[in-house]
């Protein structure tokens, strides 16, 4: 490179938000901030910035210009995109080809400010929060075939590829999933895509008996009839506001709004759905329950609402995300019932919980209960003006020590999203 060229390629760090439009530019920016030891916040379109600790970096690196589909091979079941590509763009092209992302990307926009706002694929990978189908098909990380990105020194690195069977070197696609942008700036992501199921129905089972609910979850999980989602939406008779929201959101012709209900989804072609429904009715003893069925036209929007946390639409309160071993479902419901606003997804494993503003005592109580029962908790959304002192994520000291070493191997000067997950990282 000539001196003149070098001069021209000098990256300006003048503006507060740096928006590179090529991978090379990302690399050059990172090299520059590495040499200056300048911490930076990495964002896409900012839809997930409420997750984790607030950053106090002077500059932002926005990937919103790094957008577009690079390669979509329908027959090979993969799509390669730039990291800042809006998830809607990906969903649209897949929809046109009767395919989908099996991990059901959650639209956190509702929870954050009451309306849809999905953000970029990079953000989904960085968080690794999978939707309702998780217990059946795996998490976001299970659908990442490969990636390219820039490490904390500005080196462009890659891992994985486009094929499903690949054990060449460490599986870094897993490691960067859920790392909240603290290891690499993602530039390219290759996702596994799945054929869309022909149809679906949802069975609503009305009950508020905790024992029966957890028993139903267990039977669904034990069944070979391939249920692809199962949720429990409890009623809160003493909370008029909540009941109003609940009834507004889950307003379907075939859903009786009185009382609590468990819902599960069966997907496939019509013949297979009918057969599995018949068998599940016997397996789950459904004749002993009041139940109803949502057809495909009701089932699809129903699961979007469950998946996208519409029950917590526009909340000002804290939102907690707890994952428990499935067998702890019953004790955890007992703990939460009537005390917290919550609902359950992932067939009894995932709990979304709302806790009132400034109630850190309540949060600590939940946290202790979860840890005692071998689960984990993320304080996903903090209410405004509430500086929660404890860690937002769960971790033990040994794993934190290992995580620090790994962080150091990618980002030795701790310039990427410093302190977003853990204050030490």
């Amino acid at each position, binding site marked *: 490179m000539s001196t003149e060229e070098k001069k021209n390629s000098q990256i300006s760090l003048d503006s507060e938000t740096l928006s590179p439009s090529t991978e090379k530019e990302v690399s050059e920016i990172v090299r520059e901030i590495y040499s200056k030891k300048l911490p930076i916040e990495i964002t896409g379109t900012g839809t997930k910035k409420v997750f984790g600790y607030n950053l106090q970096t002077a500059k932002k690196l926005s990937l919103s210009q790094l957008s577009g589909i690079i390669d979509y091979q329908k027959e090979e079941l993969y799509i390669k995109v730039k990291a800042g590509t809006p998830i809607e763009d990906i969903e649209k092209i897949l929809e046109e080809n009767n395919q989908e992302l099996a991990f059901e990307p959650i639209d956190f926009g509702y929870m954050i400010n009451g309306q849809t706002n999905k953000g970029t694929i990079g953000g989904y990978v960085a968080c*690794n929060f999978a939707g309702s189908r998780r217990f059946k098909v795996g*998490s976001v990380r299970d659908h990442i075939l490969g990636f390219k990105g820039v490490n904390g020194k500005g080196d462009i690195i890659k891992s994985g590829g486009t094929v499903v069977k690949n054990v060449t070197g460490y599986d870094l696609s897993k490691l960067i*999933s859920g790392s909240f942008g603290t290891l690499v700036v993602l530039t390219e992501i290759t996702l596994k895509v799945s054929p869309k199921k022909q149809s679906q129905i949802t069975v609503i089972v009305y009950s508020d008996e905790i024992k029966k609910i957890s028993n139903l979850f267990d039977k669904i999980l034990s069944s070979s009839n391939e249920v692809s989602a199962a949720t429990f939406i409890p009623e809160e008779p003493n909370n008029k506001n909540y009941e109003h929201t609940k009834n507004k959101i889950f307003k379907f012709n075939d859903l009786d709004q009185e009382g609590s209900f468990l819902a599960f989804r069966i997907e496939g072609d019509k013949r297979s759905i009918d057969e599995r429904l018949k068998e599940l009715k016997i397996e789950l003893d459904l004749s002993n329950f009041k139940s109803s069925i949502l057809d495909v036209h009701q089932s699809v929007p129903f699961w979007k609402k469950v998946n996208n946390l519409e029950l917590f639409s526009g909340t000002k309160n804290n939102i907690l995300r707890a994952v428990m071993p499935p067998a702890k479902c019953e004790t955890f419901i007992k703990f939460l019932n009537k005390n917290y606003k919550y609902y359950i997804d992932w067939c009894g494993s995932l709990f979304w919980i709302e806790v009132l503003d400034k109630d850190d005592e309540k949060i600590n109580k939940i946290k202790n209960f979860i840890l005692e029962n071998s689960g984990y908790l993320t304080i996903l959304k903090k209410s405004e003006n509430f500086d929660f002192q404890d860690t937002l994520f769960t971790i033990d000291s040994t794993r934190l020590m290992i995580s620090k070493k790994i962080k150091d191997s990618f980002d030795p000067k701790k310039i990427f999203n410093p302190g977003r997950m853990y204050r030490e990282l």
Partner: protein
Amino acid sequence: MTELALPQIDRTTVSKKSLIVSQLKKFTNEENVLSENEEIKPYETDGLAAYKQTPLAVVLPENTKEVSEILKFCNEENIKVIPRGAGTGLSGGALPLQDAILLGLGKFNKILEIDFDNKCVVTQPGVTNLGITHAVQHKGYYYAPDPSSQLACSIGGNVAENSGGVHSLKYGTTTNNILGVEMVMMDGTITRIGGKTLDQEGYDLLGLVCGSEGLLGVITEVTVKILRKPQSVRAALIGFPTVEDGGNCVSDIISSGIVPAGMEMMDKALIDATDKFSKAGYPKDAEVLMIVELDGTKSEVDGLLDKVSEIAKQNNSNSMKLSNNEKERLAFWSGRKAAFPACGAMAPDYYCMDGSIPRGKLSLILKEINQLSKKYNLAVANAFHAGDGNLHPLIMFDGSDKEQLRKTEEFGAEILKACVKHGGALTGEHGVGIEKRELMCEAFNNDDIQQQLNIKKSLDEKNLLNPGKVYPILRKCAEEGRVHVHRGEEKFPDLPRF
């Protein structure tokens, strides 16, 4: 076999052998430390039997605390450690070094907890893959990943290699089927990653460790997910007049939205070989043969099988059999499962390769392999896990002829390079080990490899845990070996390999 570069032997360590052995005996029962030649001979190689090295000593600890103390001691004394499960790996990942302790996990052979409520099994790493299924099948459950060596391979080794199998097309590989591990780091630190919950918070250390080929830690406990057995399993045995027709059929089935439990393919050379060997009754007029297995509810499987037959017909299939019972289904598989031994019967030696390619390139790569076969004047037979583009070409040769051996190695390397060129991977399921180490630069550049080495260094600062594996020592692309079987003398001749 081409000479393989191994890490430089630390003569100081070798000279201190008796001291090290007596020290190791303080950490575990004396009889768990083997140091005499005849005692350690069985450990000198793994499933890649062409390479042999005698370890300094073998230690067989009985619990996590012992593993931790041994590793801590070795770390402090700069002694290399090679972890080993059942030693069935095909890429030389457990090949000993002359100045290293071989840490065998054979005594970790107990299932610790069968937890039907949480749909998981907590087990020690030395338990066999099939052992887990045996422990839960009375209640209709099984462990999904099924490498062909599942009768003997250990679950700890499966984690190290991220093992797949015939059914990984639908059910994923090890990484998609484990929930947690207990692991000891090289400095003796014991850590638990994951547990009985789905996913974990923070960095996905489970995902990093799975498939790390024993370079990052020693697994001392594994929690695996168990699944309910499908209600119905049926298979179709379909022949095609041309390779293109077979390849197109694979693509059409997948893109139609069907996800078979498994989809296998064999070429003409292998059909002939296996038919002679196992009398599976495969069609003689087929250029390629496909086995498609479907599972699910009864009517679903029946419906899907109809669709598969329809797609096969559209792709000019010239023979088709559908299994109507378990006996017929297993008969379809018998030839495929006899593929490797059948090749062993056809030539004094064979090399088994393991590359991945995009499904749509199946017929293309087959053509290229056949051209290479002519170029090198060496016979080749091909078996594929076609559904996920994982191919196992078997090159036949006579190892006593040095020139043939050299040509075979070149041939093999060209196949793997072609896989990478077509957008595939160097290894689909056997791992890199020592076998494909120097080919890593075909898939990765220096920065990619350096990042991986940095991770290794952050967790094993002195590079003492399984050194010389996975990452190129020479950092240039040398042509090296594949699974080498001489006169049927496979290391585990009784294990099915497919």
